[in-house]
């Protein structure tokens, strides 16, 4: 009784300490999001304009965006580039996780490998985009030199002129920057699995592959779903690399949705309204993806919450009993 009274008297500090977060969120996140949505229904375009005039046909911008072949292409590019980076990324990350967590056959130098695999992730993506642009230079560039030195190609290749090649390179950069990150997350997931399960598998004589497929993989399900959805959300935002590598080129082959939005709003004829409409489509995709993640993660949390409630109820009942006996 005494405790409850006390916590009530301090409750106002919960509100007070949350004020900075809430105020800043409302001003710098929520308001701009609503503002963006509103702009999607106006005729706002041209540098320096800020006035709001609603269109007679409110969905004109959305219709125009869906008819815009560049936008459609940017959506499919984003999906293609993401897929081509994610599949090898998860395969390599799983493979490395299996190797590094294999209890029978320990690899040496794991710390150094982790250090190196994760390294590209921390470096400025803008710098990496331009670095790869220089590495794949034609006719004289490091990659061309390397391929000719190793005898793989006889004459220099013009990598950045062909759509699929350019897209593959963007996917590769994304893969290269992120597989180490994914590997660390998966390894943390393995570390979280009850070690006695592995021990009993070992005693039962399960091979490394058997242990991986029948114990490690099923137990990583939730974490892999987390990796999948967060990677999709990240892929949706892909901007720095495609923007600075080839600015969406050649022939829009590396144009992602984010680059499309940026180019609509901040170059050419400054079509803020069209860009805002495209942003809202992206927003909806992001909400759906986060919703999916919530759905995947829900089970565990709910179960935990239920358990906690049950325990609290028991505790209360026990306390009431004790209190009763004292009185």
């Amino acid at each position, binding site marked *: 009784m005494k405790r409850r009274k006390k916590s009530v008297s301090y409750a106002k500090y919960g509100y007070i300490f949350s004020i900075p977060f*809430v105020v800043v969120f409302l001003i710098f996140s929520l308001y701009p999001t609503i503002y963006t949505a509103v702009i999607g229904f106006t005729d706002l375009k041209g540098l320096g304009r*800020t006035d709001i005039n609603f269109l007679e046909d409110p969905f004109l911008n959305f219709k125009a965006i869906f008819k815009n072949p560049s936008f459609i292409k940017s959506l499919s590019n984003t999906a293609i580039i993401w897929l081509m980076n994610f599949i090898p990324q998860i395969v390599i990350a799983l493979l490395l996780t299996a190797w590094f967590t294999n209890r029978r056959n320990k690899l040496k130098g794991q710390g150094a490998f982790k250090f190196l695999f994760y390294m590209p992730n921390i470096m400025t993506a803008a710098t990496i985009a331009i670095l790869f*642009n220089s590495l794949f230079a034609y006719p004289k560039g490091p990659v061309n*030199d390397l391929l000719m030195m190793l005898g793989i190609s006889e004459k220099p290749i013009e990598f950045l002129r062909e759509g699929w090649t350019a897209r593959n390179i963007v996917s590769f950069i994304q893969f290269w920057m992120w597989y180490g990150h994914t590997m*660390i997350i998966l390894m943390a997931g393995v570390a979280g699995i009850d070690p006695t399960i592995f021990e009993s598998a070992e005693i039962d004589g399960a091979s490394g592959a058997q242990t991986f497929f029948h114990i490690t993989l099923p137990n990583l399900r939730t974490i892999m779903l987390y990796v999948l959805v967060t990677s999709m959300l990240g892929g949706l*935002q892909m901007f*720095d690399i495609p*923007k600075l590598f080839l600015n969406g080129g050649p022939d829009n082959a590396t144009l992602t949705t984010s680059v499309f939005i940026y180019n609509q*709003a*901040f170059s050419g004829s400054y079509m803020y309204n069209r860009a805002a409409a495209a942003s809202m489509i992206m927003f909806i995709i992001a909400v759906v993806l986060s919703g999916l993640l919530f759905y995947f993660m829900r089970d565990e949390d709910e179960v935990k919450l239920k358990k906690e409630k049950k325990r609290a109820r028991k505790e209360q009942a026990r306390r009431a009993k004790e209190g009763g006996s004292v009185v």
Partner: protein
Amino acid sequence: MKYNDDVGVRYGNNISRGSYVAKTLKYIVCILLAIISILPFWIMFMNATRGTYEIQQNAISLLPSTHLLSNMKVLHGKSFNPVRGFINSLIVSTGVTACTVYFSLLTAYALVVYDWRMRQPFFTFIMAVMLIPAQVSGIGFYQFMYKLNWTNSFLPLILPAIAAPAAVFFMRQYLLGALPLDIVDSARIDGAGEFHIFNRIVLPIAKPAMATQAIFSFVGSWNNLFTPLILLTKQDKYTMPIMVSLLRGDIYKTEYGSVYLGLSLTVLPLFIIYFVLSKYIIQGVALGSVKG
């Protein structure tokens, strides 16, 4: 371990030879991946010290050359200004880090210690907005800042960091495990005010979590391209990632050595941070995910 040896002995050489081959194969793959991680940066740093002529002759060199100073001169003679970019990025990233770390901890503290009616809904809300990308509100954000005349100011880059949902989430998980509520209670009995308790008692306890979040928000802000790119139009306000985009321009078309030097300069601070703090960074990545 002992058990493994026994098995190897019992089943003869076959298994151990097979596992030996497998092990070698694993090492080869790991070493190849490690080379792919290093090589692009190695070429970048080496070419930063080589002249344009040398690079044209042979674009790959594993050893440095002597043209560092002349590359620097060429770089400095044009629009790319690494010192300016460095200072601007430092200001923004330091501000962002301070805001994120302090206010995220404060918000997390409110979620952990106080029993208020909106606590659970507020936490659910933070989880819900954690994954929504900032980019989707970029147009509205730009228009809003343009109206306020805040483009070309660092404030709209720094202030939003006060509301960092992912950092709040991380701090909350940490406080739940590391902050004994008895300490808070006994401080109250000693007559300490709530703000005083937060600043003097909770802050020191949360130092490890703050350090982890500080690294990630600093690096994240240092690498951020999108928001600065839409807000900053004056060259003396450019942060490093925008500065680096100048290297793609025509004025550097034939100055290969200086382009590599410019690129090297932008990531040099990150290399230093990574070499010193990699242990904490890798730990932080693992920690953030398991709980996320």
